[in-house]
């Protein structure tokens, strides 16, 4: 399964890689440091990802701005996008659902909890029928 991981924090990227490495299933992770980079990846003509994991607080183009652009795109709007954030701001959560998301996951404090949560998310999407497949 191919994942587009949009995240500016190096350690967060390390956390995902470490979590994924412990799983049996193979994941192809494409990284983007912000919304602009992510759009560039999506429009490069390369094979599209199966799901997008999106952080909200990023420099240059925030997660919400990226989401708006994505959902206006006739083709890209079908990509399941799961928000992965530290923000417990209810306004952010409501806005994301308004624009259109496939999930909203809050990063827990402890790494062990993070691993558990992420494994569940990836498990869930693994058993889903995906647009591209």
């Amino acid at each position, binding site marked *: 399964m191919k994942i587009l991981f949009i995240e500016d924090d190096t350690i*967060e990227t390390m956390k995902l890689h470490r979590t994924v490495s412990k799983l049996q299933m193979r994941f192809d992770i494409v990284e983007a440091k912000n919304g602009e980079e992510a759009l560039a990846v999506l429009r490069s003509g390369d094979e599209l990802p199966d799901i997008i994991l999106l952080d909200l607080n990023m420099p240059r183009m925030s997660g919400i701005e990226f989401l708006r652009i994505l959902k206006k795109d006739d083709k890209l709007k079908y990509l399941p996008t799961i928000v992965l954030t*530290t*923000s417990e701001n209810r306004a952010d959560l409501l806005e994301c659902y308004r624009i259109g998301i496939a999930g909203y996951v809050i990063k827990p*404090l402890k790494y062990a909890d993070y691993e558990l949560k992420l494994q569940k998310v990836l498990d869930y999407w693994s058993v889903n029928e995906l647009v591209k497949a």
Partner: protein
Amino acid sequence: MDNKEVILLRKALDRQKKARVQAEKILERKSKDLYDVTLHLKHANSKLENLLSEKTSELDGVFINIIDPYVVMDLAFNVINMNLSAKEFLGYDHTKETINLEKLVHKDYMEYTISSFRSLLELGTLKNYKAKIYVKDGSEKYVQINCSLIYNKEHQPIAAQGIIRDVTREMEISHLLTEQKRQLDIIIENSPLSIALVVANKIVKANNTFKNLLGYSDAELKKLCLKDISFPEEREESNKLMTLMESGKLDNFSITKHYVRKDGTSLLAKTSINAVRDEQGVVEYQVAMIEDITEQRNLELQKEKLMKELEASNQGLQEYAHIVSHDLKSPLRSLSALATWLNEDYKEVLDDNGVFNLQMMQERIEGMDKLIDGILKYSSITAENLEYSLVDFNKIIHDIREIIFIPKHVNVIIMNTLPTINADKTKIHQLFQNIISNAVVNIEKEEGVVAISSLETDSHWQFSVKDNGKGIPKEYHEKIFKIFQSVGDKERSTGIGLSIVKKIVDLYEGEIWLDSAIDEGTTFHFTIKK
């Protein structure tokens, strides 16, 4: 002398005799006539005399019987005659003393008196002479006199007669009225309200405040119609109301409208119009009272603007709190992950001390994360954020029992059925959860009880949470509600919980206080406005 001659003489003598007899007869008749006439004259004379005396006595009667004081004076003001009423009024009697009327006149009226007398001499009569005089007892009287001259046979004026009316009382009333009018004028002129009297859309009178407000003089105002000082686009409404007033359907109304000053600037004013009607109910006057509220309105607008800014700034602050908390929490997550990995990846090289230090690091990270959460929660408790719905307080307690950690030996019980109130569910949950979780972890007795009860007052709901824990020393009763003030010795305590509680209670216009006895327990009481 011949016979003939004798005969002739005889005849002549005869004729003479006859003529004498005849003359005697005529004389006799004439003298009788004369006597008759004399007699008649005598009679007529006595008749006239009677008539005259009759008339004289009649006149005397009239003179005495005039009710008003009546005085006759010579041209040097000395009284020649006066009736009883005059004697009573003036206190003088001309038969006993000389009275000079000029000397009775008050000095303020002297000049006027002299000119009035001159006019009397010229015209023969004088009407409506009014003056203040002193009567004999020294008191002052106001008199009104109508008088005329009396002439002799040669048509020379020799005296003047006049009727006096005592108008003291009338003058007093008139002075009183003048004084009252003056007082009323003072009140009206000094009123902070602009007042104008309007007749048929014309301003007939206005006080100084009105004139100063609009910058017009009296004369200029009199030429103006109400519409000249109004905004054209606002006329329709006031015209409608005026029509209603004229038709008798309205006695007063109040509108807020603009006025144009003489210099062209405008002002916003609250205007009250009252109708003054005549006996038939037709509007005689309209009294307009105008209060300049330009300043007031400006202040209101300013206030509105400030409120908006405050709202925006509050919103900004909320955003800010979220961003700051996010930016503080992200590195904490990274630190936590790194510490975990150190522990996992370097198990072989780490001794017990190293493992312990990493564990301590995790605990500190956890503490800081809680603190950030607490601050964020505290800052998000604002009136704008309240979402109202019907909240069953019993259910809230049930929910809390399931969520929080309650030691096995502690029971959380509801003493009476709690009310269902229109409130913000999340905030009420926060409120009870903070108090209850404090209570349950501080009980060292074998059987711990946390009892929740409620009672209703006229204006508030009062709730109590009673525990049999170790109690809170008196000196902390105030302090515990302040942010970052923790009295527990537990390291996990952030000191925010009860300040959140206090902030929520404040939001509901309630009070919070506590009773506590060391080793017996604590009861928190708080109220929520209905």
